[in-house]
Every structure is written in structure tokens, then in C-alpha cells.
């Protein structure tokens, strides 16, 4: 399963990958191909059609589904296997976006592009190894804040003369 988001100008970010087939092949080409295929599939769909797509061959056949949501200029795409509930994932995307919104304070596309690492961290709090880890927004935000605090305190140490080494 993987998560990706894409904007309308074909600039796609593959945020997270975790699928056995991807791991074994380990190939950048295939990832790129998946992104292209997914983008192709998702972007040409109208509004008001359903948010689930049967998987193509590349993402692991009929057991996997693409579930996406369209926010303003962005598409958020999750690829999940049959062990997840479709509507549940749809909600997870919503939680993800709301969390981003909280962490970035009115999130916009540029935030995501310039702070891929942060987005990655937030996603890591929600999804782990392709499985849903945490769905409680407050919990996620608390974790992220804690991390940020840690980071800040350490940056502070870095800037001060480093005596410990």
C-alpha cells in the first residue's frame, strides 16, 4: 500500500510506499510508473463519481484498491488491500488533511511541497508499514508537537558550542 498526493499539474509526490512487490523489485522505474498510472487513472475522473478504483496490474491486482479524495488542487491517494474498509480509509484521508491543517495552520499546497519531511512525519504517525496506526487527531497532533519540541531543543544545542564531542 502507498500514499501519494498529486496536484493538477502532474507534479506528483509519492509519499510513502510499502508493498512487497515494490520492495522486491526496488526499482525507481516501477515507482515512477505507478505514479504515472495512478495519476492517469485518478485525474481524468469527474467529480461526483465514486472515490474507489479497482487496482490496476501495477499496484498488485484486484485485491488492491485506490481510494482517493480531491481537495481543491490536490488529490490524496491511498492504495489499500482488502483488509481495510473503503469508507474508513476515506475518513482517514480526511483525518490526515485535518491534521495537516492543524500542524501547518491553514495548510496549502506549497506547505506540503516545502515541508515534505514534516508531512512524512505526520503520515508516519498515522500509518505504519502500510497499516493504520492512529486515527485520533489530537493524539497525532500531540505526538507531532512533542517531536517538534525535541527537534527545537536539539537545534538549540547544535547552535551552542558542541562540547560533548
Amino acid at each position, binding site marked *: 500500500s502507498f500514499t501519494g498526493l498529486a496536484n493538477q499539474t502532474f507534479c506528483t509526490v509519492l509519499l510513502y510506499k510499502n508493498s*512487497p*512487490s515494490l520492495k522486491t523489485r526496488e526499482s525507481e522505474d516501477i515507482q515512477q510508473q505507478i505514479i504515472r498510472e495512478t495519476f492517469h487513472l485518478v485525474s481524468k475522473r469527474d467529480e461526483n463519481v465514486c472515490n474507489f478504483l479497482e487496482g490496476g496490474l501495477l499496484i498488485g491486482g484486484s485485491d488492491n484498491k485506490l481510494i482517493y479524495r480531491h481537495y481543491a488542487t490536490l488529490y490524496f491517494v491511498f492504495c489499500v488491500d482488502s483488509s481495510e474498509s*473503503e469508507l474508513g480509509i476515506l*475518513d*482517514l484521508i480526511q483525518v490526515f488533511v485535518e491534521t495537516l491543517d492543524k500542524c501547518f495552520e491553514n495548510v496549502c499546497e506549497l506547505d506540503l511541497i516545502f515541508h515534505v519531511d514534516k508531512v512524512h512525519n505526520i503520515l508516519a504517525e498515522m500509518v505504519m508499514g502500510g497499516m493504520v496506526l492512529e486515527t485520533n487527531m489530537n493524539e497525532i497532533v500531540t505526538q507531532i508537537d512533542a517531536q517538534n519540541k525535541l527537534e527545537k531543543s536539539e537545534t538549540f544545542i547544535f547552535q551552542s558550542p558542541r562540547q560533548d564531542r
Partner: protein
Amino acid sequence: MEAVNLLSSNRYTEKQIGYLFISVLVNSNSELIRLINNAIKNDLASRNPTFMGLALHCIANVGSREMAEAFAGEIPKILVAGDTMDSVKQSAALCLLRLYRTSPDLVPMGDWTSRVVHLLNDQHLGVVTAATSLITTLAQKNPEEFKTSVSLAVSRLSRIVTSASTDLQDYTYYFVPAPWLSVKLLRLLQCYPPPDPAVRGRLTECLETILNKAQEPPKSKKVQHSNAKNAVLFEAISLIIHHDSEPNLLVRACNQLGQFLQHRETNLRYLALESMCTLASSEFSHEAVKTHIETVINALKTERDVSVRQRAVDLLYAMCDRSNAQQIVAEMLNYLETADYSIREEIVLKVAILAEKYAVDYTWYVDTILNLIRIAGDYVSEEVWYRVIQIVINRDDVQGYAAKTVFEALQAPACHENLVKVGGYILGEFGNLIAGDPRSSPLIQFNLLHSKFHLCSVPTRALLLSTYIKFVNLFPEIKITIQDVLRSDSQLKNADVELQQRAVEYLRLSTIASTDILATVLEEMPPFPERESSILAKLKKKKGPSTVTDLEEIKKERSSDMNGSAEPTPVNASNVSTPSPSADLLGLGAVPLTNSAPAPSSSGSLLVDVFSDSSSVAAPLAPGSEDNFARFICKNNGVLFENQLLQIGLKSEFRQNLGRMFIFYGNKTSTQFLNFTPTVICSDELQSSLNLQTKPVDPIVDGGAQVQQVVNIECISDFMDAPILNIQFRYGGTLQNLSVKLPITLNKFFQPTEMSSQDFFQRWKQLSSPKQEVQNIFKAKHPMDTEITKAKIIGFGSALLEEVDPNPANFVGAGIIHTKTIQIGCLLRLEPNLQAQMYRLTLRTSKEAVSQRLCELLSEQF
């Protein structure tokens, strides 16, 4: 190396970068991996929740086999330790789940399992959610160990469902209490059958509450609220369908889905169609589902989204039965004209199957298929038109009609090549049935077909040439015309070897052979053996995981198996009744053409086995396994099992009480099988009498590759059961699990003994106590052919004693079963009764159980 240094840093930022680096660079470089594992181990033991979280994330994200080897023992401890932080527990549960998914063999079951189940009672809902995911997956494989989770899950669920929406605080999502956890719990319950009455009452209450809530006015206008509510509702409905035991709930579920079918949210319509598809297969709700037929048909016509339309087609297919087949097939054909290219082939297959399955009137069937070819000729695969021909040939009541209809269809100015093929074949066989009508006289038929000839591809032309030679036999009056065509340069000197050869051969045949010979050679095709439709198999394959496998490839493989099975047993050889020589010429290579009513020739029944219905995934034995098993009683080599992914071949040899079996596993796909683990399982009883030794095989089987496994066999004492061969592997992300019976039977340890008539009857009398004799009288399952029977008795292992029995029609055999502990002399006598089509089989051995078992085994063979 720098990354490893970063890992062991005490700073969060440095550590995090280190882990990020490793997650991306997962190459299992042996030197580095040891250092990395070491660093991870330190972090796991650090008791610092942040570091532990990072380490667990890393393990889960990499999720490789090496990781599993290193940490699969460690993580369960963290998971169930009392002092672990909630967030770490959550990560640990999912991390373990990930490792279990990649390498189930490396995650040890143990006393932690019972404690994991109790996590369902945890205070922290995040932990419960993660634990439920883990337990669900584990329970699918080890239902016994996690049985206690059912009642815990039900009580947890009921607490959530009945709680006021504010009770769960943070885990309430848009006024829905803990939707994700509810979904997970409902999923978990789907691993088990309906629980015992006490728990069941509570569960039914929960499900009713969920269904009731759906009817309440929404607490919020936001789409998120309805999404979450419906996620739980759909999962509850799946559980109801899964239990399939409460008619009341099922009907309510069906009504609820019926409402969703007309909902304005596309997502809900999609899911409703999907769930209803499974609901249609329940006997309680099938009728209720059928009431929605108009809505579904309407969906097919008006939905804008191809995914939804696809679901609608699936549902129509699932709800089809004899009462509505005509309507549904008509609607599908209608839709086919405008259908999306991506789903056309599937619809074609479905129409073809429904038309065949529910055909009361075969003229309707023929019409439907011809329509199908007319509308979507390009998407009609070979299987479909092979199948029409098979059916027409097997049913003489439609042959005339079929000939007339194809003749008319061929008159269209542009017709699809598949139609030409079907037309050519059918007219070649049954053109005479309509030749009486001056509008379809022989010459007109011929000219009609020949007018299409030049537009067709080589295989079709080859088929048409065969039709022409058949016409020579059917209609001697146009022989000259046909000979002229065959003689023309474009045929005799055709660049294509196949066409040229056919032209030359047919021309000679028509000039030299007398009418008698022609009539014999070009006789009407014999009926095809009845078996499950190859179309159905194709559809299953399409739906199955291996959408990639090329059909041609499988065919080739299959035919090479037939030729390749080391020694065609005498049974097969004598079985092949003289097929009409035209059989091969007609280019229907994929359809076995033997006129084989007789016993299962290995190829024929192999196909049946492959196509046999495999809907029950959890069934302990692979479908067809019993049949295959029976075929191996009298032979040692051949194909034991085959599906679209895997083929298992056997080669075995036995001497006295020892044996050796080579098992060949062939990967039929182009993708690797991972974690490939075949295991031979003996029941406890069997273990004491049969000693089996196997060597492990390589866990990775490359696409198209074959691996071999040797089983050394020692028979210690006589035995009844057969060992089970269980095979598990991962294909494209899904775990495959199948079991077949391994044909190691008592008779394999037979040594034949020759003896004279006098000796035989002397011993026969010695073994006359009622316990030593077992007799079975049974009806012949196959035609009673002396040669085949002899071959089977020899194949069974005993000596066939000629001129022993005073009645020459009877068969007698003798041999000794060798086991390590004892040797058992066996005598057998088989008396056929041709009039009654019955056999009487008598076995006398010195041991009752042996007589019993041998009699069982051998009776199955005739």
C-alpha cells in the same frame, strides 16, 4: 556507516535521519545489517518511548525477512509487557503484524497470544485498534488460539455502540463513536462462525443497534459524519452476510442496501452494489435481492462511473437465476453495445456463462451467443466460441437451428471473424440439415463461406479448408467446385505451410478416397465429454490474482504435461478410442477430441479438476484433490494438482517397504512466489506407521521456474489415511494456502507374486475366516473393458494371475504388502457382471484392516 553512527546517537534528530536513511536503503548488506540490527536492538531496549517508536517504525517499514529473523521474538515481549507505553504498544502490535504478513513462519506463537487477546480490554482505544488488526490477521491462520477474542470483541463492540457519542472523547469522529475500532472489531468477528447463544444475543443486539442508527436522522450534515457511520454499517452488513444465520437481519440488511442503491452518494451506491453481490448468494436473501433488479439495471444504464457500472454487472450476474436469466442476459447484451472497453471481455464471459447455465431452450442460447459475437466480436475469446460448438455438437436438438441461424448471420455484409469460425465449423458439421431449403443449397452455403475466406486470418482459413473437405463428404454434388478451389494456386502454393499442407492433403483425399472412406474419415464429430465450461474457468482466472498469465502459455504448459508425464499408463493408452482423423485437422487444438466416454484419461479429467469449482477458499483440501488422489492409486507419475498459479507434479518409485517421491512445484505465473513452504502433514495415527522425510525447499520460486522436493518414505506398518501436502506461499501480496492429499497408499508397497492355480486356491482357502475376507459389490463407474481392468490391477501392484480362475471373465491377483514390521500376503478376485454392469471384489489377506483398506482403494478404480 555514517547512518549507523547516526542511529546510535542520543539525539532525536540525528537518530531520526539515521532511521530515515535506513528505511530507504534496505539492501541487506550483510556487514551493515548486523550493526543496524544492533542499534535497533539497543533502541528497543532503551525504554525511551520515542526511540522505541522510531525503531519499531523502521522495522515495520522495512519489514524484510532479515528483520523478522532478528526481531520477531523480541516484539511480542514489548507488546505484552505491563510497563510499555500505550503509543509503543500500538506500534509494536502493528510492527508484529507486518512481520507476520511477510514471514508468518518466523513469528513464534506462544503464551503471549493469550495476553494479546486481553489487549482488547485496554483502556487506550488506539491500542485496542492496533491489537484488533493484529488479532484479525493472526486469527485467520490460527482460529483456535484466538477463539477467546470473540466474546471480548463483542462486549467491546457493544460498549462502543451503546455509548453516548461523547463518552469516547477523542475517538469520537464527527459524532460517531470510534468508527475505525468498530470496523476492525466487526472484521475480526468475520473470522469466526456465529458465536454461542449467549454472546450471539449480545452481538445481534449490537448489529440491530447499528442498523437502527442508520435510520436515525444524521447528527451532522457533514459528509464525514455519514461516511463514518456508513463505514460501520457496511462492515456490520458484511458480518451479517458472513454469519448468514439470522434471516431477520439479512432481510433488514438487504433493505438497507436497497436504500443505498438509490442514494445520491456514488460511493454508497458502489459499496451497496458490492455488498449486495455477496448477499445474493445467501439463500435467505436471494429473493429479497432479486426485487432490486430494476434499480440495478437502471444503474447499468445511467451510472456515470465505470467502477459502479462494473459492480452493477457483477450484481446482475450474482442475482441471476432461472426466473430472470432471459431479462438479465438481454440487458447485459444491450449494455454491451455501449460498454466500456475495459470491462467488455468480462461481460462477454458472463453473458456466455449465464446463457449456458440457465438455457432452457438451446435455441435461445445459440441466438444469445451469436448476438454476442455480432456485438462484441473482438472480445469473444476462443473459449466462448469453442463452447458454443461443443454444446451444439452435444445436443442434436439444436443442430438444425444452429446451422440455419449461423447461415443467416453470415449473410450480413460485414461479419466478425469469430462468426466465420463458428459458422464454418457448424456448417461443416450440420450444413446438410439445411441443404434441403433452396435458399441455402450446398453451393450457396459454400459460396457464402468462401466469400469470407480471403478476409480471414490464417487459422480461420485453415478451419474453413477443413469445412470444405467436410462439404465434399456432405454434398458430393459440389465436390468439383471445391476441388477447383483447393487446386488453385492461392491454396496449393500458399506461403503459409499449414494452409498449403491442408490444401494438398484434402485435395488428394477427395480424389483418391472412395465415398465410403470419405464418409468414415469425415464423419460427424463425436460428442464432447461433458465437463464444466472452460469459460467459467476463464472468468475465474480473470477474477483471480493472476490476471497476467497468458492463456496460450497455460495451454502450452498443459499439453506439455500431458505428453511429458513420464509413462502414460496402459490405462490411458487403451483408452484412446480411434478418434476421427478430421479431429485434429479442424484446428480446435485446445479441445480434447477423444471420444472418451471411458475411464478418466489423465488429460480429460485433469481439465475437469482444474475447472472444478473453487469457491470455498477455506476448504481444507483443494477441490479435485480426491479425484486426483484416486487416479494415483494405480499409477505413480503425473500431475497431482494444478490451478492458475501452481502445478504440482509427482514422480515416485517404491520397492518393498521403501519409497521415494519427487514432488515438482511449477510456478505458472511470471511473478515470484515468496515464502514458498510445502509441508507434509501426517496425522498422529499415521506417523507411527509411516515414516516420511522431506528436505525443505528454497522459499523463493521464480516465475516460470520449477522446484523439486524429495520425500523419502518408509512404511513401518499398515496404514489407512494418506498424508496431506500443505503448500503456503505469497503471490503478489496475498497468502496462498492449499492442501492436497498425497497419494501414498498401502498398495504402493505391494510386491507381485506369481503362483499356479493350485497354490492360489489352496491359499485362498487358508484365508477363509470371515475377518480375513472383505467383499464389496459395486456398480461400474467406467465402461467394463477387460484390458483396462487388467492394467489397473497390475498398476495396483499385485500380480495378475492368468488362467487361474475357472471362469475366464474373472480376474485374480496376488501379492505381498511389505512393511517394516510385518509382511502381509494378499489375494484378490474381481468378478465382473456385464449384464448388470456390476463388479464383485473380494480381498483376502491375513489382516482384517489391510483387506478393508485395499478393498476400498481398489473399488474406486472401476
